[in-house]
């Protein structure tokens, strides 16, 4: 694993891996969204509004996968002191927050015609809103830690601990519809079984793969950006010191 600890080697790999994820990701995501928007038949109860499924579900998955990335990278940073792990965690925060916000917005738009309300404070919706606030907190903390980089590793470690602690919310989001009576329906896809008909499931899976590739590409792009920031700052500091 420490083979990738060398930022120069990582940057060489990221340079060709990033377009390799972004281009097929965009093609798959937009293809699946067009499929969902124009070719899929209406749902038996929801009718046309079922088409929002193809953006809502992949966003929900990536909102949660984003924090899982932060938590795993934070663990690697804290235990193995891997130099790129903290950067990977910070890079995943903004796209994760963006997908969480997309999930909440599309869910709200979907809830109005189907449930008859924009928002309810049930377990699933509330825990997902908390996830968005956790992202905001993490982004603010990581920004503050970066500015305090001169003060030592302590601030970065606080960010990593926050990333790990916040992961407690992920299983709560996942189980919220099972533990508590909620307006949101229980999970449609559970270990190897799906109550989504194949006509909806296939474009949904393609959309999920496409969105995930976009997420990976954006994380790599942001890691390159953060590394470039760190290099510039180090260079400026060296110059200032003469």
């Amino acid at each position, binding site marked *: 694993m420490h083979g990738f600890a060398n930022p120069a080697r990582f940057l060489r790999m990221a340079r060709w891996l990033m377009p390799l994820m972004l281009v097929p990701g965009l093609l798959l995501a937009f293809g699946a969204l067009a499929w969902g928007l124009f070719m899929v*038949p209406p749902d*038996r*109860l929801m009718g046309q509004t079922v088409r929002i499924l193809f953006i809502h579900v992949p966003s929900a998955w990536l909102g949660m996968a984003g924090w899982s990335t932060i938590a795993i990278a934070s663990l690697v940073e804290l235990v193995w002191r891997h130099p790129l792990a903290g950067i990977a965690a910070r890079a995943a925060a903004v796209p994760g927050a963006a997908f969480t916000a997309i999930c909440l917005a599309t869910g709200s738009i979907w809830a109005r015609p189907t449930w008859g309300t924009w928002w*309810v404070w049930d*377990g699933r919706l509330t825990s997902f809103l908390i996830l968005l606030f956790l992202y905001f907190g993490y982004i603010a903390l990581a920004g503050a830690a970066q500015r305090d980089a001169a003060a030592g590793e302590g601030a970065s470690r606080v960010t990593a601990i926050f990333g790990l602690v916040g992961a407690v919310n992920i299983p709560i989001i996942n189980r919220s519809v099972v533990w508590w009576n909620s307006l949101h329906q229980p999970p449609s896809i559970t270990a190897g079984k799906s109550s989504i008909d194949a*006509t909806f499931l296939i474009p949904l899976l393609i959309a999920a793969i496409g969105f995930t590739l976009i997420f990976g590409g954006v994380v790599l792009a942001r890691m390159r950006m953060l590394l470039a920031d760190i290099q510039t700052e180090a260079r400026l500091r060296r110059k200032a010191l003469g």
Partner: protein
Amino acid sequence: MNTTTIKPKHQRLVLIVLALVALIGAGLLAAYALSKQAAYFYLPSELAAKPPEAGRAVRLGGMVEKGSIRTQADGVTINFIVKDDKARVPVRFSGITPDLFVEGSGVVAEGRMEGTTFVADNLLAKHDEKYVPREMKNMSTAEAKAVIAETK
């Protein structure tokens, strides 16, 4: 030399795993303690077993019994029965129902108990986790598969 470089790493790993176990334990305890308070609605059987005091605002969620929706003479008031596998609660509601409010489907009613009837101020439709195209809803799985095979 090797032991001195590996040891602090393992120490950190053990420390963090212990902290995570404690944290997850605390999270599960909190979720367990919340199990009743965090519920968005009462099931009919819960309402029947422990009725809330009359006039207190509560939510009731369950299935709309098939064939139970009756529209009253004024045209806007409906009576129906919300049930789960153990209990049935009669509900009265005046107003516009959401599109997905149909017999045999889920509903969450906001309102209060008046005697044995639940008087709802607001209805929310709760749909199940199934997504099925309209044309295939009445077909058996085998028929639906045949249709999909044809259209491919």
